[in-house]
């Protein structure tokens, strides 16, 4: 139940247009640092139980947005509401956060590090230690439970911190560039873990500059570039921003059917490539058949998130995204 106070609710859970409960709702978030606007009017609605991606190149404002959502820093303008509370710090115990710059106390043992992170979120130390050992065992790191963090590899320390992020069984998990620094095997493990969390009802929001991750995993994305969010919503809707592409192969080289092709049609090899006309596929097919095109094959390809990103955020943002060496390595 939402109780309105002026224009902003003070208690209860938000719902989106589709009537789904929202884990996070942010409106018009602005953050300036020394006169530089890092985030400029960001609107985000994250449904409960969703896997939500914040996609953008480095320096686009992803981390600052997440920090505002978590209450680490306050926005200069705008409002945010997290798990039904105006002050995210009030629900800090229900949130798990993995920052982009990972960090643990080097002298702590792995299970103690998890217990410490749990204690910060209100779990008693003894229980945290028990869960720490348990989680390490479950994730194949039981042998490292008593090793100091400084004795672990970077990847292992990162896994320990991720387990520490989840140890208190949060309702909302916020991961800032979680795939960064992980090898392919561990990226796969993390993807499975995120899906499992969402299946269990946990809301997961993560930032990434890797389109493939967002496309593969997210129900919804916010595309962020230059501190602004030109698109936020379901991935399918983002892709639908672009008309599907048609690939046509015909027996006839020429004929009256050519008039059915849109103006952007181009001939490459044996195929014609063009954007599906707004009238849809049926009138196109009819015109091709009636014009004796002799259709050998016709495929309609939906636009990928990368193309959608280019269309939404612009070529410059796409180039910035592609300029990242990690991105290059993974695509």
């Amino acid at each position, binding site marked *: 139940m939402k109780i309105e106070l002026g224009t902003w609710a003070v208690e209860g859970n938000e719902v989106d247009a589709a009537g789904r409960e929202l884990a996070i709702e942010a409106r018009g978030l602005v953050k300036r640092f020394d006169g530089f606007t*890092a985030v400029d009017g960001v609107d985000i609605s994250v449904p409960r139980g969703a896997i939500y991606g914040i996609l953008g190149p480095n320096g686009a404002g992803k981390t600052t947005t997440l920090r505002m959502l978590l209450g680490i820093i306050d926005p200069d303008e705008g409002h945010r509401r997290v798990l039904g509370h105006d002050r995210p710090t009030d629900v800090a115990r229900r949130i798990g956060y993995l*920052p982009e710059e990972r960090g643990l106390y080097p002298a702590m043992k792995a299970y103690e590090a998890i217990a*410490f992170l749990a204690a910060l979120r209100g779990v008693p130390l003894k229980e945290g230690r028990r869960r720490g050992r348990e989680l390490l065992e479950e994730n194949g790191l039981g042998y490292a439970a008593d090793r100091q963090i400084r004795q672990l590899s970077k990847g292992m320390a990162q896994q320990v911190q991720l387990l520490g992020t989840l140890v208190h069984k949060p309702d909302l998990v916020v991961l800032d560039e979680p795939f960064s620094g992980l090898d392919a095997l561990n990226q796969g493990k993390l993807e499975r873990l995120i899906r499992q969390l969402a299946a269990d009802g946990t809301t997961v929001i993560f930032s990434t500059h890797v389109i493939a991750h967002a496309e593969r995993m997210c129900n919804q994305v916010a595309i962020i570039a230059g501190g602004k969010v030109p698109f936020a919503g379901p991935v399918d809707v983002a892709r639908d921003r672009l008309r599907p592409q048609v690939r046509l192969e015909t027996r006839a080289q020429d004929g009256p059917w050519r008039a059915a092709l849109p103006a952007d049609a181009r001939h490459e090899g044996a195929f014609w490539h063009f954007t599906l006309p707004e009238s849809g596929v049926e009138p196109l097919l009819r015109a091709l058949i009636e014009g004796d095109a002799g259709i050998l094959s016709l495929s309609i390809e939906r636009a990928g998130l990368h193309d959608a990103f280019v269309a939404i955020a612009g070529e410059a943002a796409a180039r910035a995204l592609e300029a990242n060496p990690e991105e290059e390595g993974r695509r």
Partner: protein
Amino acid sequence: MLSHRLHAAWVVARRDFVAVIFSKAFIFFLLGPLFPVIVGMMAGSIGATVQRDLDRPVIGVAMPAHEGDLMVVARDAVARQLDGRVPELVVLKRLRDGEAFDARVALGSGQGVAAIITGTRAAPVLTGTPERIDQWQGIVGLIAARAVEKAPQGYPIVQVAEVKTSVAKQRNEQVLTAQAGQVLLFLLTMLLAGMVLSNLVEEKANKIIEVLAASIPMDALFLGKLFAMLAVSMVGIAVWGSGYGLLVLVGQKSAPLLAAPAVGWPMFLALGFAYFAMAYLLLGSMFLAIGGLATTVREVQTLSMPATMLQLIVFFFASYALARPGTWIETASRVFPVSSPYAMLASAAQSSALAPHLVALAWQALWVGLMVRFGSQLFRRTVMKSGPARPRKAKRRKAVAA
């Protein structure tokens, strides 16, 4: 929510306390006070030796025949009466009849004497620098008089009646106690504030600060860190106190005693602890705020320099006020929050009134609260900046456009 904050502060304090206590740095922390003590002892020992040498000057004697020897015997008799504070006499030369002796030449030739007596017992001549002449003219006369047997052969025994102390003496001794308390307070505070600062910088370097900032309120983080170091200092004080006690026991020597403070030792120690906590919390929160502004150890050193200087000034201010009781300076030093703990501790040594301490502690606690709040807000504002640096070209363009 208060319970959440306290729990969070407790989690941070426990972690920091354990981490510091079991670190190598803590050993150095414990050994820290030894260095000034050792340096002080060495300097004191060297100084004492030099002083002893300076205090045992030798006067040479060059007189006819055995007159010089008689002067030496007379000197010993006078020295016994004057508790030894009489310069040594050494016969440089026993002059034959008519033999000349140039005392000025002898003094300049490095005979190892500070002055020379020539002439006769009845008419001695003292040659030396004006200072030495001023210092020894009377005593040489006394020795010569004794040597010619004109001085009394015996001295009456003076009965003595001691009093334990006088008002003036007591006041002076309590000022010493106050000064000692202030110095100890200052050293401890500086040592610990530096530790809490380096602890925070280490956390920034470890990148764990963001996890902490996301998990718990910043003021809880501050409080936790401050109280962890306070607990560390308690361990340090316990160790130092025990070590000192052990040394006194093993060495079978009595500890140098300070005069009992006006409020009595138990209350003075209790107030000392309270004022130490306040001084440390005030300075520590200031240093933590500085730690928030800095990203590297070098930056911390640069930024903490003014705070350290300020603390020194505050300490000198409180010490200065100690010598000016009843003036506005003393009042100001008690009211100014950062100098208040020092000034009030000194007051506890000199005045038995307890009510002012309750007021002072409440006043200081209020400022601790404000400083922690302000420090944590500043820290929060400055520590979590991210995003690209503003391009200089864009800045320049904007300036040109304007």
